[in-house]
């Protein structure tokens, strides 16, 4: 059963079509990777799914419900969690309070009821030692971890990760992959935009290629990466 389904979704900014008739399904529990050159419309596709941007055309279904016209806030409540490409922490709140906002509002529960879950997430993402630090003082890796932790605190059914491995060292990247695999193993559906391909392919079961807003490839990561068209568009080289 597919948890997310896009049917002919399009979005234009003026004359520029950034999402062009995109249709695809994501089965429950799958990890889907999205690749494509810069400006291919990957982040826009995410924003369409999370509701930060509204589609001009097409329908988006999530968990058996048409969410095309539903606000970002309500989509979170129905189980869509996201990380931002550029980390967007609540800077004056502490790391723990960042998770607390997400858990109390994203799950509509009291502070007391979500406390242990927040602590559990912080332990899994290895941020527990920074729990009382204002988020504005975190390093880049810690900010990325906070993005992931905050999305996890809402206990999403579908987790969208936007270039969460970008800018990290190899060691940091491996640690983050471990955490993402761990989340995926618990049955959370994941859609992950990433330029760090080896990180992506070590987690995802399927790969989607985007170019000029169009879905130009969808399938097994090995086959996708081997296809000539993808290599030309994505890597910009003749092979």
């Amino acid at each position, binding site marked *: 059963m597919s948890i997310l389904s896009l049917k002919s979704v399009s979005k234009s900014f003026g004359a520029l079509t950034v999402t062009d008739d995109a249709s695809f399904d994501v089965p429950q529990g799958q990890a889907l990777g999205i690749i494509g050159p810069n400006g291919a419309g990957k982040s826009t596709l995410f924003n369409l799914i999370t509701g*930060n941007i509204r589609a001009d055309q097409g329908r988006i279904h999530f968990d058996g419900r048409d969410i095309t016209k539903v606000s970002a806030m309500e989509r*979170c409540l129905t189980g869509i969690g996201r990380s931002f490409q550029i980390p967007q*922490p609540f800077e004056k709140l502490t790391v*723990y309070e960042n998770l*607390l*906002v997400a858990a109390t*509002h994203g799950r509509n529960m009291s502070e007391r009821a979500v406390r242990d879950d927040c602590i559990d997430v912080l332990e899994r993402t290895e941020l*527990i030692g920074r729990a*009382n630090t204002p988020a504005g003082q975190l390093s880049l890796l810690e900010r990325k971890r906070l993005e992931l932790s905050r999305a996890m605190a809402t206990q999403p059914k579908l987790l969208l990760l936007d270039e969460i491995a970008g800018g990290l060292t190899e060691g940091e990247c491996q640690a983050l992959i471990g955490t993402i695999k761990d989340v995926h193993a618990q049955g959370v559906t994941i859609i992950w935009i990433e330029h760090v391909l080896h990180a992506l392919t070590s987690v995802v079961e399927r790969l989607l290629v985007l170019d000029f807003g169009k879905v130009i490839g969808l399938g097994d990561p090995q086959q996708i990466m081997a296809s000539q068209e993808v290599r030309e568009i994505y890597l910009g080289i003749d092979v």
Partner: protein
Amino acid sequence: MAYTVTTQTPASRIATILGAITIVVLISLPFFAGRGTIQDMFFILTMLVLAQLWNLLAGYGGLVSIGQQAFVGMGAYAMFGAVILLGFDPVPSILLAGVVALMIAVPTAFFAFRLNGAYFAIGTWVIAEVVRLLVAQWKTLGGGTGTSLPREATSDMWFVAGIEKLLDVRSAAARDILAYWLALALALVTIGGIYWLLRTRRGLALAAVRDNSEAAQSVGVDAVRMKWLVFLTSAFGTGLAGGLIYMQKARISPDAAFSVTDWTAYVIFIVVIGGIGTIEGPIVGVLVFFTLQTLLADFGSWYLMTLGVLAIVIMLVAPRGLWGLLSERTGLHLFPIRRRLTGGKLKPEER
């Protein structure tokens, strides 16, 4: 080892005790202080209420309004209207002042929320001017020149006779004492209410929206609802303060009741020099403001210029205000809201 969450600090425990003592002293003030002191304290407390509410709006909600005089003025006029036209007692009419301010706040928010930042600020000011001009057309309440509360309404106001007997004072002094006690109650409820709000999950949501509205909505925070909540709450409280201030003055005119200088510029000054985004800030600010006003009372327009220069200097050297400066240096918080996680795997230095 289990984790615990606490907001208390050793300083806040001491502050609780000192706060309780201060409240007892303030309640019993009319028993030993003169009428001048009571009037000064009334001024301080009502300005404190306005400052706390503006701080809730701008410092926590990110809604920089310069139209709060609309709610002071509407509250005041509602109170006068209830007394003069409906024959109500002034004391319960104050509640009506809050309700009318709330009613005005709904259409105000409907229009002003379409604007952001500086446009929102100017929009609220324009709306306040419109309300002032409309009220000035209200002939039964004196039109542009204003009116006074009828003598019979002020002389047998609720509680006044009781206070006369209790403290053995004249009717005029008893009215001031009544106004003072009401102002004290309003200030305590306002500060207590804001502090309570900030410690709930709605307070967290407010901080999240202020820091990053888009991210807040992505984790399920209803940012629009938070804006409404803050705007309406502050309008209601500001309306109550307006009703109370003009109950004590017993004389009203549109220019005074809708004065942008008295009810918004001074209030912003108080919050900015005290420290925006903290409960302690407006308390510090109102004391500084009162001191300056007393010291500079004889210097005419130099007084306003001094306030302006001081505000600019504070903004440049201490953008978080006097309290911000102090709490940055000392880590002191009298009204702590930060939820600290302790115990478990946290090392002591990480707490």
